[in-house]
């Protein structure tokens, strides 16, 4: 199946369209909110919340006996929130650090959830099959109503974010200062955290408990590499998230039986790796290139400065010197010298070099330039 056929299929096939739309919206809202989590250094909170949601799903099923996704997700929401507040409680009431608190709640809740799942599986109830899809998610079970739900939550989320943009930004940057300006930081904090919990719960059905935090973090981490503006970062994260959803769905749909959730997460991971390497300002590749170039320039300047020092001892700056002198004093390389000749700083005559006027002037200004550049 080529791309054109696939795109046609997305528009004609009801199931595929629903899944593509659902994963795209989910990716966008997760990227958006994930930016806030990353900037608050609460990256792991998402992981803890999603794991903490599992017992809620199991308990909701045990109570209602129904597998209706909305009911189960309300269970997930409640237990996710309980987990979140426990984590906060542990951090504020004890001396434990936040990573310890997160790890503790994450494994406790997940362990309890797994226990309940195995218990449910042993029940003589035909209905129980398929609950474990919440572990790794199953995009194929998305219904149009689920997508509507996601769209509505995303819309509300977007609205709140635009409304309280200024408050969100200042709280993320400097919470203490925000307090002194008279803002109730608790309200802003609860707003952000609740939306993160909501986004996670929305994604459980598609991506699952285990991988959900990657949906939150990967697009945001990738977006951070490309920009120094919060607004652009949030927007880019939403775009990366949405594309992860669309591409991930496409890959899993065109390859039989590839689970959608993990593929989406992997696509998001590709965005991250690509951004880490190729971002112009923060990426590894350009950083390395800049580093090498700077070193080379410095080497060039050093050789030139050295020649300048020798030339200065003579009245005539173009007084030729044996190339051997350079060798004796400093391990110059032919390449460096060649480059200096190319720039017309140095003349080579057989085995003798001499500074040109241009080279002399440049060398004289070298030190000044260096200090100017550093300012």
């Amino acid at each position, binding site marked *: 199946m080529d791309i054109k056929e696939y795109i046609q299929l997305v528009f004609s096939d009801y199931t595929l369209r629903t899944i593509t739309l659902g994963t795209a919206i989910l990716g966008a809202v997760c990227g958006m909110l994930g930016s806030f989590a990353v900037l608050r250094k609460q990256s792991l909170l998402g992981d803890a919340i999603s794991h903490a949601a599992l017992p809620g799903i199991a308990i909701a099923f045990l109570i209602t006996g129904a597998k209706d996704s909305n009911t189960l997700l309300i269970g997930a929401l409640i237990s996710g929130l309980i987990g979140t507040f426990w984590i906060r409680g542990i951090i504020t009431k004890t001396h434990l650090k936040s990573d310890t608190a997160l790890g503790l709640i994450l494994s406790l809740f997940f362990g309890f959830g797994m226990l309940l799942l195995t218990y449910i599986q042993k029940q003589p109830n035909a209905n129980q099959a398929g609950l474990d899809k919440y572990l790794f998610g199953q995009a194929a079970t998305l219904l149009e109503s689920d997508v509507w739900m996601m769209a509505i939550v995303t819309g509300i989320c977007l609205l709140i974010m635009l409304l309280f943009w200024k408050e969100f930004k200042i709280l993320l940057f400097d919470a203490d200062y925000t307090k002194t300006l008279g803002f109730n930081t608790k309200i802003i904090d609860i707003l952000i955290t609740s939306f993160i919990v909501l986004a996670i719960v929305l994604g459980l059905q598609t991506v699952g408990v285990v991988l959900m935090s990657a949906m939150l973090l990967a697009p945001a981490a990738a977006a951070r590499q490309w920009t120094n*503006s919060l607004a652009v970062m949030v927007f880019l994260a939403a775009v990366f998230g949405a594309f992860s959803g669309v591409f991930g769905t496409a890959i899993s749909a065109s390859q039989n039986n590839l689970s959608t959730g993990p593929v989406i997460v992997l696509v998001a991971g590709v965005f991250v790796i690509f951004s880490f390497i190729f971002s112009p300002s923060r990426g590894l590749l350009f950083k390395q290139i800049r580093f090498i170039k700077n070193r080379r320039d410095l080497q060039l300047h050093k050789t030139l400065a050295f020649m300048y020092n020798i030339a200065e001892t003579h009245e005539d700056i173009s007084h030729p010197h044996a190339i051997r002198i350079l060798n004796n004093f400093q391990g110059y390389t032919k390449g460096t010298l060649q480059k200096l000749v190319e720039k017309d700083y140095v003349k080579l005559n057989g085995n003798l070099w001499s500074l040109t006027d241009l080279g002399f002037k440049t060398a004289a200004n070298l030190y000044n330039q260096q200090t100017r550049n550093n300012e």
Partner: protein
Amino acid sequence: MKDKIAVKVDDLTVAYNYKPVLWDIDLEIPEGVLMAIVGPNGAGKSTLIKSILGILDPIAGSISIYDKPYEKQRALVAYVPQKGSVDWDFPTTALDVVMMGTYGSLGWIKRPGQKQKKAALEALEKVGMLPFKGRQISQLSGGQQQRIFLARALVQNASIYFMDEPFQGVDATTEIAIINILKELRKAGKTVIVVHHDLQTVPEYFDWVTFLNVKKIATGPVKDIFNDDNLTKTYGINYKVSVQE
């Protein structure tokens, strides 16, 4: 001239755990002084400022700003936190950080407009950072970051300024630039309260001083109380500082 009380602290006690960090502090800061708070590490200097500003919850005590409770007078107060208290890799520009100083007067939801931007640019100009307005804040030097924080407080156009170690880790040029701004503020009748570490510069920079070590040791004009006796009481060792008259 110095008869109006800008900040009044009554019976302030703060504790994180069992041990009190601040014990029964009474403090009156007259209007128009440039005051240093000095004391050893762990003396509660930052805690005192943070408690006055309502960032920390004290166990007991009350704060009033010009005879009214602090909560009603927030608009009169500006704060410069320690530079190290925020993540400077946050995706934003110098101008944007300074604009945050206007958020308090805007209140909830309302966005900053041209008026706020103009005020922020003026503040940047004052601290000599106008050429860096569009710079990503992680690309600024420590001294420049400190100036940005100062500009953010200046934008608030407050009557009372609280600053937590504004001279920490800045070079001599920045230190002089900052102290000149502080002196200008005092000249304009503002009250400036600074947590300060360098005892040598206290007589030169400040006209009022508070010695603090969990309890308040002394407070008053530098020329009257900045002496070896109070320094010894505060720092516990026989401290000798050459006070230049």
